[in-house]
């Protein structure tokens, strides 16, 4: 393939890395307390991406379905865990629910796009499947975590209103309905907002990449349109799936609100303390 772009060499990467000096300087000067975090974040970003580059080169060269599927599963797994970790409360099974919501929504939507819309042959072609899945995952994860956080906040903050509704004879679904709707809306607002200003205020990341790689703007834009619709669908599916799974945990079949099932995330210290505590009691 003839490269119609300028490759970036190692010393050019180094130059770019120097830009972080601006952040470090600010952090030291204003005592933001971010110096260590900045260095770790920078190192993580560079290592993760370089590693990804190597893995993708390898997988692109192989181009057989199993390794591509495997990397897709790993990516979706990280997204599922990250979606839950961004929220402020936990319930038993929340990580499994997060994984299920992320997997189902992103695989279904990416599958439909690869097979039905873009019509890639073979369907797993890494050049298409992996970037598309990545774009979908990155956005679904945000949508899911926002929606889930709103839902769990509501279960705590609106407990009295929900229970008053249940007391009147409402079913659990009738009592949860407003909160489910609000949570879904919260999850979908970022993608709707970004659709509103796309191309005017923001140049989307994937399109930027295609332009840099020498793709004609008119066709880069077409890809961007497809991907935004994919993202919007996956966010809606993922957020709805996650909220319904959380709803089943927090409202039982006796139409009771089980908000005591929600707790703050446990730290490692809590877990150790708990084990020692339970052993002491025996």
């Amino acid at each position, binding site marked *: 393939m003839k490269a119609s772009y300028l490759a970036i060499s190692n010393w050019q990467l180094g130059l770019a890395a120097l830009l972080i000096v601006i952040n470090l300087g600010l952090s030291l000067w204003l005592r933001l307390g971010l110096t260590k975090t900045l260095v770790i974040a920078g190192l993580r970003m560079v290592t993760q991406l370089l590693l990804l580059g190597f893995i993708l080169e390898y997988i692109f060269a192989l181009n057989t379905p199993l390794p591509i599927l495997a990397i897709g599963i790993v990516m979706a797994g990280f997204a599922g865990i990250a979606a839950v970790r961004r929220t402020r409360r936990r319930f038993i099974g929340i990580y499994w629910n997060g994984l299920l919501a992320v997997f189902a929504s992103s695989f279904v939507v990416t599958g439909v796009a690869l097979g039905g819309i873009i019509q890639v042959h073979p369907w797993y072609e890494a050049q298409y499947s992996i970037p598309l899945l990545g774009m979908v995952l990155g956005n679904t994860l945000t949508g899911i975590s926002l929606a889930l956080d709103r839902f769990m906040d509501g279960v705590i903050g609106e407990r*009295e*209103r929900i*229970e*008053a*509704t*249940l*007391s*009147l*004879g*409402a*079913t659990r679904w*009738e009592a949860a309905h*407003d909160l489910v709707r609000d949570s879904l809306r919260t999850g979908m607002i970022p993608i709707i907002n970004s659709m509103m200003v796309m191309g005017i205020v923001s140049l989307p990341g994937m399109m930027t990449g295609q332009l840099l790689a020498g793709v004609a703007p008119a066709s880069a834009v077409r890809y961007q349109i497809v991907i935004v619709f994919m993202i919007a669908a996956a966010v809606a599916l993922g957020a709805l799936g996650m909220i319904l799974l959380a709803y089943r945990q927090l409202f039982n079949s*006796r*139409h*009771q*609100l089980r908000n005591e099932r929600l707790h703050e995330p446990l730290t490692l210290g809590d877990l150790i303390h708990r084990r020692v505590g339970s052993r002491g009691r025996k």
Partner: protein
Amino acid sequence: MIAFRPTPSGSDALLEVRGLGCYFLGRPLWRGLDLTLHAGERLAINAPSGTGKTVLLRMLAGLINASEGEIYFENRLLQDWSMPAYRAQVMLLAQQPALPLGRVEAILAAAFAYRTHRHRTFCKNQVLEYLQPLGRNEDFLAQHTDYLSGGEAQLIALIRCLLLEPRVLLLDEPTASLDSASTGQIEKLLDAWLRANPGRAWIWTSHDHSQRGRIADRVIELSGAA
């Protein structure tokens, strides 16, 4: 642990409780609670705060499960009832009204869309009949719940329950945070509701000795087990 005037339990009992227990952090707050509520009865519960009065009413409303013991409504075990159908008959009014945002009329009408209440129709005139003796008119229905005082919000929460015609009302200190004027209005409204149909009854928790005298034929003392 529980001191009360025993009532012979009979098949005409509306609500019957046997051996009910309430635990907090593994320790019993109270145990072995028996009580029977007949149609037309006005029962008050008195207990020091922190002894689980609210928990008792929440158990009776099926919002939480009892740690031990049984609850019967119309001689049928609580577990055998569909919860929405049960709660439509045995309705809890919480101490804090917790109304959703919106216009009073819309909030009062909303419950009529629930599956359990679909056979009923919201009747504005019925609301006005409740409001008239309290010196309120149609303008009150157009108000937004944001602008209601605590007393007004509780009044609306109560009318919302009454419109659905439950048989038993569980009243969790409904007037504890209200002034005497609002308290009087709530008591007046409830009194008229009970008199209107001999099949109705209430369980009312109250700290206020003189109020218990006004609103109850019988008082149960719920005392701590510790």
